[in-house]
């Protein structure tokens, strides 16, 4: 029984360490941005889309100011 527990712990450590090591090179290096760096690839690339989304969101949630401009989010500005 003791042996099985030890083996299980060992297996767990091995799995965890491999998983940890596997994450060491995740992500795009700074010199590899390429297409990702283009303006059209930004999450907020479409100004009109963004304005419409913001308008709907602020109206529904009464959260004016949530985008970072002046206002406390009370919806009264």
């Amino acid at each position: 029984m003791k042996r099985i527990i030890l083996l299980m712990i060992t297996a767990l450590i091995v799995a965890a360490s491999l998983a940890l090591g596997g994450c060491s090179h995740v992500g795009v290096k700074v010199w590899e941005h390429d297409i990702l760096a283009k303006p059209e690839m930004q999450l907020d690339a479409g100004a009109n889309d963004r304005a419409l989304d913001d308008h709907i969101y602020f109206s529904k949630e009464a959260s004016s100011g949530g985008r970072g401009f002046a206002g406390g989010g009370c919806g009264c500005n």
Partner: protein
Amino acid sequence: MIVSTSRAAGLVLLLSLSLFVSPAFSSDPPETLADVDSVLASNGELDGKVVLVDFWASWCVPCRISFPWMKSLAERYGEQGFVVVAVNVDKDHNSAVEFLKQSDPPFTIIYDSTGSLAEKYGLEAMPTSFVYGRDGKLRSQHQGFHGEDTSKFETQIAELLRKEAKK
């Protein structure tokens, strides 16, 4: 048996951890110009020169902005032994060529589309430039391109050229 398995597991854990932390150590740039020099067609071209190695890409806006400044530096300090080597990391060679047609820089361009040089230098930002003295040793490193820092940067280069003037 159990002990040896545990030891092996410990070893794997250590190895994995070393892999995990390795990017932190890869950011040290080479102390000498050997890597850049080996890529240049004419070896020894950089001997006795103050060299600015600049990593750039056509998709990187600050890199594009920095070109006129580097161009002016190369023109003004070239005679005193200042050399700019611009390392292009574009995957798409045509994009780089297109940009170079417009800017027409008077300095050497190295193409590093695989990113092997960039990897060796452990870049953390674009553009990043490295200044090497006449002895080929690394003097300073600059990340990004900020218009307000250019005069300070230029002073450093001018000082290097003056202090290490050829005897």
